[in-house]
């Protein structure tokens, strides 16, 4: 309620919920259970399951070809799964055609009806349901007010901006109180600035109407901002599902770590509460608990989680990894990006000496490169130049099992 008052002060009279009317719900609005789908020879979805809670917004994040669009179409009833179920508010709708599901789809290019005005587009769902004219008019008025298109109600879609068209598309689905809203790459057709603006707008709109939503996107920033939870899809299977904090800070797989933002990756072994990378030992009591002694692991950490210092004193909360040499310093607007080569020497018996840092001239450079970013204040307070030797620590990282074969997962 606070969000509503704060974000849309002029819609104070709008105390109508656009969520479907139903009895005390179990909390799960939509459920996808074990859905698989093949197109000709290729498997597009492999046993995908997830739930969307009442009022929640879930983002399906994945690269193109990850199957995210197919899931959306299966939920909407525009595509049939080969196996598995789609359950909306406790009802199995797998075999229902799209028109009987009561799902709202906001298509990528909005798919507004070009021969209808804004009003008529919004009224369409009620018109084909033969709802009384008066009721229809009232609902349209409320929706137009909700999406703030009062002065555009008589316009045709082509006379509207992308953002306005999108709002019409949303209002058009809200008119029939959809069980769930599905957004197909909602900001794909817009420029970067409008995109950020509209994201916030939609977020606040969804908070007002309290309809559960599923977004699909390939944009990680969009996913982090829009989703109450994020489901990361890769090649037709679900890699991880969790809150933005979860998937970003505790990625379950290497794919999630690298797809959501930048990540550094080092191979090591879990031993005695540490991750041993060559001769370096990183204390990680908690993180290595689930691994057996001597198990091969991957150390994954984000560029912003690296702390560097020219003396041996790293800030508290920062676990020391090893030393390194600054190779490159780039200033990229809001932050500074450094390439640092780590002193990582192989243990005795391992002959490959490639990881040993020698001299910092480009010709004879060795050592494992990692990417580090620092915020502007820190970068100005402590300047580095290529060739500086530094101590390297990590504030946060993940330890993942290192399977040599994908099927060992």
């Amino acid at each position, binding site marked *: 309620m606070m969000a509503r008052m704060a974000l849309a002060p002029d819609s104070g009279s709008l105390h109508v919920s656009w969520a479907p009317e139903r009895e005390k719900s179990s909390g799960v609005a939509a459920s996808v259970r074990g859905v698989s789908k093949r197109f000709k020879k290729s498997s597009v979805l492999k046993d995908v399951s997830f739930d969307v809670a009442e009022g929640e917004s879930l983002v399906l994040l994945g690269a193109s070809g990850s199957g995210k669009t197919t899931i959306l179409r299966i939920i909407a009833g525009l595509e049939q799964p080969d196996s598995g179920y789609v359950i909306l508010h406790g009802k199995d709708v797998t075999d229902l055609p799209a028109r009987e599901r009561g799902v709202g789809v906001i*298509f990528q290019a909005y*798919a*507004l009806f070009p021969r209808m005005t804004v009003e008529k587009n919004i009224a369409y769902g009620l018109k*084909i349901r033969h709802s009384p004219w008066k009721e229809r008019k009232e609902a349209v008025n409320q929706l137009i007010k909700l999406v703030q298109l009062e002065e555009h109600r008589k316009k045709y879609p082509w006379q509207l901006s992308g953002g306005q068209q999108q709002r019409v598309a949303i209002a058009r689905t809200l008119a029939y109180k959809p069980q769930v809203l599905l957004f197909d790459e909602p900001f794909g057709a817009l420029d970067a600035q409008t995109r950020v603006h509209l994201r916030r707008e939609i977020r606040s709109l969804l908070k007002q109407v309290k309809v559960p939503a599923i977004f699909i996107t390939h944009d990680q920033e969009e996913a982090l901002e829009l989703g109450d939870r994020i489901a990361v899809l890769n090649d037709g299977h679900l890699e991880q599902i969790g809150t933005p904090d979860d998937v970003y800070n505790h990625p379950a797989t290497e794919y999630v770590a690298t797809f959501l933002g930048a990540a550094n990756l080092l191979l090591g072994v879990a031993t005695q509460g540490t991750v041993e990378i060559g001769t370096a030992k990183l204390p990680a009591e908690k993180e290595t608990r689930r691994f057996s002694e001597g198990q091969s692991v991957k150390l994954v950490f984000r560029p912003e989680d690296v702390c560097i210092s020219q003396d041996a004193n790293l800030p508290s909360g920062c676990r020391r990894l090893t030393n390194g040499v600054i190779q490159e310093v780039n200033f990229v607007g809001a932050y500074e990006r450094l390439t640092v080569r780590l002193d990582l020497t192989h243990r005795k018996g391992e002959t490959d000496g490639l990881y040993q840092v020698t001299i910092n001239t480009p010709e004879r450079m060795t050592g494992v490169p990692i990417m580090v970013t620092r915020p502007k204040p820190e970068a100005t307070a402590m300047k580095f130049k290529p060739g500086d030797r530094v101590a390297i620590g990590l504030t946060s990282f993940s330890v993942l099992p290192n399977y040599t074969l994908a099927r060992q997962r």
Partner: protein
Amino acid sequence: MARIRHVRGFDVARPLSIAALLGIMLPLILLPLLSIFVYGTGKGLGVFWSSLIAPDAVFALKLSIATSFWATVFNVLFGLFASYVLSRYDFWGRNAVIVTISLPTAIPTAVAGFSLLLLWGRYGMIGQFLTEDQQIMFTPYAIILANIFVTFPLAFGVIKPVFDTMSRSMEEASATIGATRLQTFWHVTLPSLRGAIVSGALLTFARAIGEFGSTILVSGNLAGRTQTAPLYIFAKFNEGQIEAANAIAIVLALLSFVIFSVLFFARDWFDIDTQEV
């Protein structure tokens, strides 16, 4: 060598090339058209008018318009249906069907008329089984059949590309909103085809109303019964009644002119609300 060049920002090539363009068009298209108006009204508007309201002339015009109208109605409906099927479903032999629909454009109209005679004529493949009062050939129905044949692909040819390029997501949106297929077709698909339907209909009508080759074979060219306007022009010309032929020629020419003007602007009128932003 005379060199054409810009003289103080004045492009000499421009008026010269426009003049050349008109010079070529003049004897080939403009003068012939002009001459029917010059000769047709040469003996005064009274003669023109009395030629025009001669019973056979009026009948010929009415028959042409009626037969063209029904051929147009059929071909637009068929074109819509065929476009829908061929752009929505993929099946074995789909391309063969598309080629077959387009075939009548390539067939000489006399051949078209002749083939209809062979099928429907008294001794034709189907015609032989019809009784005397069921015979179609040499009736207005034969003219409609011939018109349908020669204009078969025109409406389809205009409607199909629009169907193909129409985004599926609009129909899918309608379905997810809760519309049945019929509702979707009526409220969403059909309105988007408005321009194409009007263009297709006008194109078909314009082509049908001037049809000669096939009509003369299947109609029997009976004045006052199966004589269409083009046949009337031909018959009167053969009889040496130039004014009678000319009056109808003017009407047909004006009609085509009107149809093509509408055709030219139809897209703008009907598709104005689908312009890209």
